[in-house]
C-alpha cells in the first residue's frame, strides 16, 4: 500500500509570501520526493525553520548582500532596532535586580557600583530617546505608506501590537498596587504569586516588543525612505549600538563591584552572609546584553558597508 504523502504546506508557511509564490510548488515537490511518505526528522524540520528565518531576515534586509546601498543601510538600522528590543528586556531585568542596591552596600563601597548603575540608567534613557527620534523621523514615510494601501497589508499586525501594548500598560496598575503591600524580599522572589505575575507581565512585554519589531520589519521594507531619512536613521542606529556596548560595560562594572562588596544582595540573603555573586538571572541578563550588543555591531557594520558602496 502506498504511503500518504506528508503534508508539508504547514512548513512552507514559515517562509515569506514572496518566496512561497516563487519557490513554493517546487519546494513542496522536493519535500515530497525526499520524504517519500515518511515523517520528517527533527533535523529536516530544523533545516526548514532555519531556512525560513534566513529568508525572512534576507527579505527584510537584515541579512545578505543587497544590490542597493539603501536596502543594505535600511537592513542595518532595522537590525540595530531589533537588537535594542532584546537589549531592553535585559535592561528591564537588570533594573529589577539592582533595585535598592545602594542600601545593601557597606558604607563607602557603593561609589564604583553607583557609577556603573548610572551609566546603565543614563545611557538606557538616551537610547530610548534616540529610538523615539528615529520613529519620529520615519513617521511621515510611515503615514504615507499606510495611506497608499499599506494599512491593508499591516493592519492585522498593527492592531495585534496595539492590543498587546494596551494589555501590558493596563497590567502595570494592579502589579504596582500589589507591590506596595510587599517588602523588598517579597518583591524579589520571596512571594511566589507576585513573582509569577511579574514573570507573566515580563513575557507580555517581550511579546509586545517582538510584535512591534515585526510591524517594523514588515512596513519599513515597503516604505519609501529618502536618502536623508536613511542617513539620519543610520546615524541614530550607530549611536544606539554604541550605547548598547557602553550599557553592557556599565552593567558588568556594577556586577563586579556589588559582587565583591555585597554578594548577599545579589543572592537575596541576609546582610554580611557569604554568597556567590554568580546568579543565574545576572548571567542571563549580561549574556543577553552581549548578544544584543553584537547584533547591533553587526547592523552598524552593514550600514558602514552600504556607505562604502554608495
Amino acid at each position, binding site marked *: 500500500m502506498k504511503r500518504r504523502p506528508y503534508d508539508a504546506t504547514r512548513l512552507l508557511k514559515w517562509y515569506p509570501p514572496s518566496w512561497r509564490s516563487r519557490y513554493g510548488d*517546487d519546494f*513542496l515537490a*522536493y519535500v515530497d520526493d*525526499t520524504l517519500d511518505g515518511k515523517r520528517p526528522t527533527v533535523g*529536516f524540520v530544523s*533545516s526548514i525553520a532555519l531556512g525560513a528565518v534566513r529568508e525572512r531576515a534576507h527579505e527584510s534586509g537584515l541579512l545578505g548582500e543587497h544590490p542597493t546601498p539603501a536596502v543594505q543601510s535600511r537592513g542595518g538600522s532595522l537590525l540595530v532596532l531589533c537588537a535594542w528590543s532584546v537589549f531592553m528586556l535585559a535592561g528591564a531585568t537588570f533594573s529589577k535586580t539592582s533595585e535598592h542596591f545602594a542600601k545593601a552596600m557597606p558604607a563607602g563601597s557603593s561609589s564604583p557600583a553607583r557609577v556603573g548603575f548610572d551609566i546603565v540608567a543614563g545611557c538606557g534613557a538616551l537610547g530610548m530617546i534616540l529610538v523615539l527620534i528615529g520613529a519620529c523621523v520615519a513617521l511621515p514615510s510611515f503615514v504615507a505608506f499606510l495611506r497608499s494601501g499599506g494599512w491593508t497589508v499591516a493592519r492585522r499586525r498593527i492592531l495585534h501590537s496595539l492590543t498587546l501594548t494596551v494589555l501590558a500598560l493596563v497590567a502595570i496598575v494592579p502589579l504596582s498596587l500589589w507591590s506596595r503591600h510587599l517588602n523588598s524580599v517579597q518583591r524579589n522572589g520571596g512571594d511566589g504569586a507576585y513573582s509569577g505575575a511579574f514573570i507573566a507581565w515580563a513575557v507580555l512585554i517581550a511579546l509586545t516588543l517582538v510584535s512591534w519589531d515585526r510591524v517594523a520589519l514588515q512596513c519599513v521594507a515597503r516604505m519609501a525612505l529618502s536618502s536623508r531619512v536613511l542617513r539620519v536613521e543610520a546615524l541614530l542606529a550607530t549611536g544606539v549600538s554604541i550605547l548598547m556596548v557602553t550599557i553592557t560595560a556599565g552593567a558588568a562594572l556594577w556586577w563586579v563591584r556589588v559582587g565583591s562588596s555585597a554578594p548577599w544582595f545579589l543572592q537575596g540573603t541576609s546582610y554580611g552572609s557569604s554568597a556567590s555573586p554568580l546568579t543565574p538571572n545576572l548571567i542571563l541578563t549580561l549574556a543577553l546584553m552581549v548578544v544584543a550588543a553584537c547584533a547591533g555591531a553587526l547592523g552598524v557594520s552593514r550600514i558602514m558597508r552600504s556607505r562604502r558602496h554608495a
Partner: protein
Amino acid sequence: MKKTPANEGLRRTNDPPFLILTSLASGPKHGHALAKDIAAFAGVELGPGALYGAITRLEERGLIEPLDGEDRRRPYRITEAGSASLTSAVADMRRLVDVSTARLRLAIGGFS
C-alpha cells in the same frame, strides 16, 4: 548539512553554492535530483533550508536559472555567468591543490 565520516576533516568543498553549480554543470536538475547528486559525488547531505537558500541566492545572482517543468518540479540550469563563476572557483582550488600537492611531496621527500 551532514558529511559522511570519511569526509570529516580538512574539506573545503562543502559550500552549498559551489556544490549546486558543480552538480548543474552536468545538466539541469530539480531540487531532489540536485540533493541526490550532491550526496553521491561529494558525500554531503544538504538540508532543505540550506539547499533552497543556496538556490535562491544563486538565482538572485544570475548564476542559475529555472526552466519550465512538466509538473510542480522546476529544474534549474547553470547560466553562462554561473559557469564562469564555477570555472574561477575551480581554478582557485586547483592552485591550492597544486601548492598542497607540491608541499606534501616536498615534506614526504624530506622525511624519506
